[in-house]
């Protein structure tokens, strides 16, 4: 599942550490999500989307949509 977290983070001027603190996880987890090495739970996904001020469907792209 692809995502736009890095792009949206830059828009909001947030570092990975800032975003991690706001959603209650580690910087390493945010890094793993951005690199598509870890798929977050629904709860974490919603928290990230809320902090980035976007809908969850705008932050995370389900692979079928890319086709």
């Amino acid at each position: 599942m692809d995502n736009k977290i890095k792009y949206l983070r830059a828009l909001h001027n947030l570092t990975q550490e800032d975003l991690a603190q706001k959603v209650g996880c580690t910087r390493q987890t945010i890094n793993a999500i951005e690199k598509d090495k870890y798929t977050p739970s629904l709860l974490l996904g919603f928290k990230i989307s809320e902090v980035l001020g976007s809908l969850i469907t705008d932050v995370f792209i389900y692979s079928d949509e890319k086709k």
Partner: protein
Amino acid sequence: MNVSYKRSIATSIIFGILFCFLVTFFAVVGPEHYLDKLIYSIISSVAVLISMLSFALMLLLTNKKENIVDERDGVIQKKASSVGLIVSLMYVFLLSIVLFVAYRNEGVLNVSWMWFIAYSTFAFGYFFTSIIHVYFYHSEG
């Protein structure tokens, strides 16, 4: 490097050293002579005690309020524990089979092997699980 990762590295070092010590010590003393002197059992028990105290001290030193153990840490811990359990079971199985084949014709097995299986499985289990933990952290970002 988060706290879980650091703890895994420290655990693998502590119990890796213990496992190597137990294997080497048992190999040097030999199963036939292990129970001859009480000091051998005491040395081995002290080694295990030191490892456990080191492990407890490590947990204490890394236990800080600002530590975050998030969902990804939980997922990796579960996967590492599952793999570690299966490999530990395989270790006991293989060791037991090797001893069976080696001592089948003699009909008796020195009881000190039981001690070795018990202590080495304990050390190996902790060591391998923490190594797998480190591997999963590396491979999954």
